[in-house]
């Protein structure tokens, strides 16, 4: 009997609440932002599987002129490198974009960005970034060679062996 009453009260309460909520219209709680759950940590958003060692040999691509601290540009490159080492590729890309705002035609920054994208297995983007670096490299041979290596690796991953081999040839 008491249970019944409680249930009755509860049901009526719910009805009243529904009426009440209707009249309070503008204060209703909207749905959360769609992307909210995905990105507690910016790094989690782009989930990058570690590159299996069997498929792709450990990075042959060393960065040309490893950054040294001192200038704003060098320090940004350095922190991007640290982020890369920690597997924080999204952060590394953002840091390199900051560097590009200081020096938008720096072939080496574009190359480092290409390496980040390569590590993220964003092959097409890596290819394009390396090509961009090449377009800006002028006669800097080591930079160009490195770009061809990046492109070779990206082509290989995309299954385009002919282009991968061609790029490897050019890297020599």
């Amino acid at each position, binding site marked *: 009997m008491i249970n019944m009453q409680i249930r009755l*009260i509860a049901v009526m309460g719910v009805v009243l609440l529904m009426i009440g909520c209707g009249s309070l219209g503008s204060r209703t709680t909207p749905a959360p932002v*769609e992307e909210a759950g995905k990105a507690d940590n910016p790094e989690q958003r782009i989930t990058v599987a570690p590159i299996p060692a069997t498929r792709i040999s450990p990075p042959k691509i060393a960065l040309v002129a490893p950054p040294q601290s001192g200038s704003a*540009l060098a320090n940004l490159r350095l922190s991007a490198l640290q982020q890369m080492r920690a597997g924080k590729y999204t952060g590394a890309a*953002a840091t390199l*974009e900051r560097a590009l705002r200081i020096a*938008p035609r720096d072939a080496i920054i574009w190359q480092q960005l290409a390496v980040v994208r390569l590590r993220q297995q964003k092959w097409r983007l890596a290819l394009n*970034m390396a090509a961009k670096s090449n377009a800006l490299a002028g006669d800097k041979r080591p930079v160009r060679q490195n770009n061809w290596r990046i492109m070779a690796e990206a082509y290989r991953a995309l299954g385009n062996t002919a282009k991968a081999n061609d790029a490897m040839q050019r890297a020599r």
Partner: protein
Amino acid sequence: MPRKRSRKRKTTRKKKKSPFLRKWLSRLLVVGIIFGGLYVLYLDYTVRSQFEGKRWSLPARVYARPLELYAGLTINPNNVIREIKKIGFQKNSRLNTPASYWRTGNDIHLVTREFEFWDGVERAKKVSIRFSGNEVVSLRQHGSGAEVDLVRIEPVLIGGIYPAHKEDRLLVQLSDTPDILAKTLFAVEDRDFYSHHGVVPRAILRAMWVNLRAGKTVQGGSTITQQLVKNFFLNRQRSLVRKINEAMMALLLELHYEKEEILEAYINEVYLGQSGPRAIHGFGLASHFYFGRRLNELNLSQIALLAGTIKGPSYYDPRRHPKRATKRRNLVLKLMYEQGLINKRRYQRAKQRSLQLVPKPRASASEYPAYLDLVSRQLRRDYRDEDLRSEGLQIFTNFDPHIQWQAESSLKKTITSLEKQRKLPAKKLQGAVVVTSSDQGEILALVGGRDVRQGGFNRALDAVRPIGSLIKPAVYLTALDSQDYSLASMLDDSPLTLDLGGGESWRPANYDKQYHGEVLLRDALIHSYNVSTVRLGLQLGMNSIASTLKQLGVQRSVHRFPSLPLGTAAFSPIEVTQMYQTLSASGFRSPLRAIREVLDVKGTALQRYPLTVEQVFSPESIYLVNSTLQSVVEEGTARGLKHSLPEGMLVAGKTGTTDDLRDSWFAGFTGSHVAVVWLGMDDNRAARLTGASGAMRVWGSMMRGIHTQPLALIPPADVAEQWIERKSGLRGNDDCEDTVVLPFIKGTAPKQYAECAGGAFADTVDGFLNIFGTDD
């Protein structure tokens, strides 16, 4: 008798019915208790669900790019000051408060605030920036003198995307508010805050008594909790029912929540001012609105002023009624002194201070409506409108205030002077400007019309107009990329009549009403010859030109009539900008982006819009087009631009003029920026301006004012230069009268020598030498 009987009957009936009535009464009582209980339950649910859920609809806040300072940066120190003032920095020679600055000679000293960016917190710093002219030469820690490599200053807030009810607030946590704020609020609004249970009957009775005697409402007996309930849950109407609801909800609120939570909600809820349609709520926003400072940066008299405003934000509006507001503030200070919150010295000093207000911020949602419009359109692709208006998202953009200011003033000044010079109808000439970075496609500035602060028709995005000769680089790129043509190919610029069918024909004409016979392909582009371009277009086919436009990034489909190569297709300024961005970036297309990152209200990253590039043309083909566009400014239709640019500032660009001088266009790029300007009339009447006499002047004046890099084109490895005789398009040398040095993709340069350079004989010698392996 009958009366008596009846009475008797009545009494008997009464007697009889008494248990029945009592039964009903008790049932009624039970039902009453149940409903009363239910009602309390309902109130309780309302209080809890709303207090625990999302309490407020928070507008999205849109920020400019942060200013990054480093040695070697070119920037006008006045612009640095102008920008930091927008964030609320104040002059202070002692540099002992956050967000203060001091300028001495070539140095600007700054105390920055801590700010949370997408990639982490930028700590507060005290730095000295040394300038030499417009260049930052060093950045040092103030005091120690240690070098600092990079300082990122918090970004300027450029607008908000507001909820429908236009309530705006900036949430603060109680722990982030100055202690004196809460104490002041208690002193003024609710002395017994920490001891009551939400309602103080004694205070209500006292208020009633005072009001009754006065015959009107002069005193409120509401506690802070009741005021919160009133603002938070109830409507503004005054009635007894509402009063009862208010009291019950106040009790319930106190039952469930800590005093601190209630106080924090109150600090964020309370209404403190009005800016046009926008209601200023909470102390966090009010402190920006009135003083341009963060809440924890306010001094005693500023806090007293805000606390005093609660009673009547309109009546005590310090901007409209400074005397009234000062009086009120001083009353608050007096209360504080009397209650022992401050000593006499502080009281006296605070009383003496001015109101320290900043000028009233603009009432509209943004000072930069065109850019904000672009941002919200880009956001609407990924977020629901409702979320943008309520979730308190933080949007970080590429907006560059310095470039925006320059674009705005160049457009306004040029339009005004053109109207005067050319006696155009007043206030009719309109315009739009888009500026992006070359290699990244970041949209840095956007002007949507001559009234730059006014929203409405956003011409930069929505004025879809024929682009005239701005299309020509796409036509010539199609030709050069096929490698069937080179810059030295000869084009026919003699009269042309096209049969359009149905007895109609079309005779394209040049702007100078003349025909130029055989011309070099590069000259046809430099001088923007129409007839030869139409012939070239017919040879290439309209489909291939359309496909080039698409590759360059123009999404809109175009018609395929023979007039396409003359730009009878209509695009918006931003679409044209995308096209020229791809050219400026050596054929690497980057989708134009306004937004960098989106964070939620707590600073958690939701989304980043990263830099992407796609190579859509070979750097070689683009190099040929770009070096020709550079010649357009050196010797072609845009040569007038050279005079308005600083010495050595190499740029590439193209003028565009449409039929009857309706549209005046200029699109061009430096080594670091792409900009497109359009001038014309909204009703499509003739603006009587060519690309060079209108839009190009805006472009030049703007580029002169921003810090940009000269365009240094890097010749790709497969490109080599060669002397060409203009008349024949063949190889020339010193002996020829009219020659030009042109770049060629290897294998596409003419092999034959011109008559002046030895003709057939030289060809033979060359062929002979080639046997021995000499190569060009």
